[in-house]
């Protein structure tokens, strides 16, 4: 069946997501990498749903809802930051420092 | 009626009175607090006669507090705690009276804290429920933290925080040990209970975990005692604390450590506490405390620090007495606990009175005071002599019994400890000489006022006790003997044969 290959693809995509997050400085791109990771996980859910029941697909649904909410809020934050600092490059954003 | 409620009343009354003091006008605070503490003392005095020496744990009251967790409000008194209660109620009015001129700011808060502290101290000594004990232990910790930190000397914050963290560190370890112990006992009996009696009856053999539990209890109490090398908070706390704080700290708070040994650490884990290696280590630490505390006291320029280090030495005798585990040594240890409270308390009062007059605690700042303030000099001499254990004062009775008893178990250790008697003379007499004898070479000292009637009222009861206990300690000894006997018997199976006398 397709479970093994699907999991392999999922792992590859997830790793690429992580790689991207670590590699880039642009907040929006990092955000997109996070989406990529979410999708990789979705793939795992779907693949396993074939064997373990439809609940896996339901979780993908929930993940999408969360991702949508996250994207909305996250992008709003990025907008706010950009307005404030004039950049979305994380190197220049160290407001978190106490 | 009295028997049922006296202990609860002793805990509750000061706390209630503290509320009243807080609400009263500032200038009434000290008078109200004095009255309240005196009533507390009056309530506690009949205990002396109500208490039945052979009656074991008595005047008990046990009501569920948090029943789901097996926590009870359980109190009771035996020959060990009786004198600690009386010592507390006796010294609190005196310390409040002794603070009349010393404390000039935020009087309401100070006296209210003193009263809350009293509640906590009484609670520690009467609690027969491990949880209640722990709660009371922390209840007395917090007022003392503020007393040092708000009304203390130059370096008060450092001292207060050191005192707090040090003690709290130990008390947290103790909490962990208490919880573990209750859990282990519950595994055996199926019932969760913090009751002292229940734990004591069902503790059984704990195996290797007993070592860690004992270690936690020991550390908590050893810090409080304080035993070498956990003693360095004491000089700082004593030096910075106001007079009343120093008095209560030395006279009562330190005794909680040794009381904890007698009540919890040793009876719970006799196999560990009396294991030869552990025993040797603890006896060695107590000897180091005696000699080292004395020698370090000898070179202190600050009178309060000197007394603080002498406390380390005196409490070393107590620990030695407890671990020597003979009737004489254990009763001697109890006597030293009482005597140290009286003598060291009086010494702190006296130093505090000097400080009020000259704003210095340095021994070098004085000299020749016997000419200027003869009454003060006479009292200081008597109290110092009691502290160095001159026969026919209280100090001798305790130390003599400890050493006599300890010599049966540990001849060499007792012989080493006896040198502490020499060291005691070496640290207190030079200090005494430099304060009240020698030429009157500092002009500021030439016009000091002698003891006022109020100060005499503080000191004379203490001096009376010094002589009374020194000459006729039998009423004390009789009341504590059965309890000391039971303490020894409860741990004896684990003790080496030599201790069984």
């Amino acid at each position: 069946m397709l479970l093994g290959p699907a999991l392999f693809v999922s792992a590859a995509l997830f790793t690429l997501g992580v790689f991207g997050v670590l590699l880039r400085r642009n907040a929006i791109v990092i955000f997109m990498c996070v989406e990529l990771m979410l999708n990789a996980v979705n793939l795992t859910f779907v693949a396993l749903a074939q064997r373990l029941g439809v609940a896996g697909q339901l979780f993908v649904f929930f993940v999408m809802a969360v991702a949508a909410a996250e994207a909305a809020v996250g992008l709003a934050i990025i907008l706010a930051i950009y307005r404030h600092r004039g950049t979305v490059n994380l190197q220049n954003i160290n407001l978190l420092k106490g | 009626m009295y028997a049922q409620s006296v202990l609860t009343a002793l805990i509750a009354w000061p706390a209630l009175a503290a509320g009243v003091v807080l609400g009263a006008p500032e200038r009434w605070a000290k008078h109200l607090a004095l009255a309240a503490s005196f009533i507390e003392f009056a309530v506690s005095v009949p205990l002396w006669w109500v208490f039945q020496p052979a009656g074991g744990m008595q005047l008990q009251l046990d009501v569920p507090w948090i029943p789901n967790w097996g926590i009870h409000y359980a109190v009771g008194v035996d020959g060990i705690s009786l004198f600690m209660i009386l010592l507390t109620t006796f010294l609190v009015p005196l310390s409040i009276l002794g603070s009349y001129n010393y404390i000039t700011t935020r009087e309401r808060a100070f006296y209210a804290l003193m009263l809350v502290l009293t509640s906590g101290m009484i609670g520690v000594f009467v609690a027969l429920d491990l949880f209640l004990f722990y709660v009371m232990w922390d209840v007395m910790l917090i007022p003392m933290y503020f007393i040092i930190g708000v009304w203390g000397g130059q370096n008060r914050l450092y001292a207060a925080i050191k005192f707090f963290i040090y003690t709290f560190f130990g008390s947290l370890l103790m909490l962990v040990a208490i919880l573990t112990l209750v859990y282990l006992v519950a595994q055996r009996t199926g019932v969760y209970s913090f009751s002292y009696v229940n734990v004591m009856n069902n503790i059984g053999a704990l195996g290797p975990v007993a070592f860690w539990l004992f270690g936690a209890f020991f550390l908590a109490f050893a810090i409080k005692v304080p035993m070498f090398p956990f003693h360095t908070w004491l000089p700082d706390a004593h030096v910075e604390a106001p007079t009343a704080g120093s008095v209560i700290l030395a006279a009562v708070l330190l005794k909680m450590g040794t009381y904890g040994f007698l009540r919890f650490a040793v009876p719970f884990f006799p196999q560990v506490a009396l294991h030869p290696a552990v025993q040797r280590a603890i006896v060695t630490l107590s000897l180091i405390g005696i000699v080292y505390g004395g020698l370090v006291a000898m070179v202190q320029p600050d009178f309060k620090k000197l007394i603080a280090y002498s406390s380390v030495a005196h409490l070393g005798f107590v620990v030695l007495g407890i671990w020597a585990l003979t009737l004489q040594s254990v009763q001697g240890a109890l006597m030293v606990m009482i005597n140290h409270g009286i003598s060291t308390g009086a010494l702190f009062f006296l130093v505090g009175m000097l400080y009020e007059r000259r704003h210095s605690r340095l021994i070098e700042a004085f000299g020749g005071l016997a000419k200027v303030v003869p009454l003060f000099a006479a009292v200081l001499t008597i109290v110092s002599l009691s502290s160095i254990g001159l026969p026919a004062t209280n100090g001798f009775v305790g130390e003599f019994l400890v050493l006599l008893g300890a010599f049966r178990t540990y001849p060499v250790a007792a012989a080493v400890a006896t040198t502490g008697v020499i060291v005691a003379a070496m640290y207190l007499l030079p200090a005494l000489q430099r304060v009240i004898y020698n030429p009157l070479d500092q002009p500021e000292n030439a016009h000091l006022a002698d003891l006022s009637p109020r100060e005499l009222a503080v000191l004379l009861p203490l001096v009376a006790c010094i002589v009374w206990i020194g000459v006729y300690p039998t009423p004390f000894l009789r009341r504590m003997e059965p309890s000391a006997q039971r303490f020894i018997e409860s741990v004896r199976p684990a003790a080496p044969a030599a201790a069984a006398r």
Partner: protein
Amino acid sequence: MSWTLIIFWAFAGLAIASALCCITRRSPVASALWLVVTLFSLAALFVLLDAQFIAVLQVLVYAGAIMVLFLFVIMLLNLGRQGPTDVKGPLGVGVAALLGGVLLFQLWILRHVAPPDAIQLPPSSMARLQQEQGLVGAIARPLFDTYLIPFEITSLLLLAALVGAVVLAKRKL
């Protein structure tokens, strides 16, 4: 090798390749567009894995809504033009590669962790279920039955996100 498998690997390759492009393109717009490709490929994989409804959602919500949102923001911030690269230096690449490698290695080891046989459904049971209850029904039934409360909470989450996004993005309230 069956057609299914060939199609699977074709889309899988596409997804991985475009994901690689997504994380390496300098321009955010390019990245976003490559991500869209990945998402589409994944939708195709979902179809192959008997999750047609999810695949549709993927195209509508992800590739449609979310990515458009991304692009809007990029445009809004005027980040489309070529700027200095935001890829980290050699050290950053090294750290990223190391951590990614470790992750991949861990996942490789984890591949053997299979769900126990006892709870596994027989093969193609998903397809059967969809036949019995319809593509949407197979998902809708548990969603409005077992997972009703999480579903409702999701609506709350979306509402909160909506409000939050408005509050954050507005210049001045």
